[in-house]
């Protein structure tokens, strides 16, 4: 009986964690929730695999973003825009 209760409790925890997995991946959870999800992922293979698949997708997209950008060109554009913003003046009041 106690094993059944434990199983149900684990399933409930899986359901709860599953809903929070993507927010955990994006570092958008409160520290308390993040610790709870992290502890669960250490123990649950199924949730761990689910997390890993989201994580691979996120990393792949970040890699694609790097490939599609030229960091040097981007940096130069940001610096030009910073100079533009510093030198701009408020419009004259009538």
């Amino acid at each position: 009986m106690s094993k059944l209760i434990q199983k149900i409790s684990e399933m409930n925890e899986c359901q709860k964690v599953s809903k929070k997995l993507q927010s955990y991946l994006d570092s958008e959870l409160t520290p308390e929730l993040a610790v709870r999800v992290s502890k669960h992922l250490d123990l649950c293979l199924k949730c761990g695999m689910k997390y890993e698949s989201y994580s691979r997708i996120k990393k792949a997209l970040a890699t694609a973003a790097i490939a599609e950008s030229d960091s040097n060109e981007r940096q130069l554009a940001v610096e030009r825009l910073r100079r533009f913003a510093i030198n701009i003046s408020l419009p004259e009041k009538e």
Partner: protein
Amino acid sequence: MEGRKKIIKMESPSENDSVRQEDELVVKFKSELNELMPILFRVAYSMTRNYHDAEDLVQETILLAFRAFDKFDGRYFKAWIFTIMKNANMKRGRKKRPELLRDGDLSQVAQEFSSKSTETAAEDSLFVQAVRSAMNTLPHAMKVVIQFVDMDGLTYDETAAALNIPVGTVMSRLHRGRNRIKNNLINKGIGTKG
């Protein structure tokens, strides 16, 4: 600046305070802009997918923000400036470019994995290409949220402000979008079940 000093000397104390407050607001405004510039550029790039157009859009946003400066109360800067940018981009009526991988992209991706074995690098490159291609099949509203969070590194709050939508909508579009990508990969025999 010299002109502003002369004006301050001639003004009454209350006017003087008002000018000082405005000066402080301008300093705060420029400081926030300076700090936010890389994100502003990233968001503009996400909207235009072109460096030149992104730079134009940020410049236009800065000009519009300065023109509307009297409406800025010093709070919620990000939300305010992203709204200006979004409206400016809509006015430009820019046609979205197809976001397919260009010919040179795969070789650049492969360079990212130069420290790995050739086989691993090839597998990773193919996976990146498959994910990107799955992303391109998503509806635009879903795709743009994934682009902001996963490709441009914005937080949920920043994405919500940039798109002028609630954070809950950002989360649901992002999470459903990633699930669709995952299922798309599974259907192609690429992803892992879970």
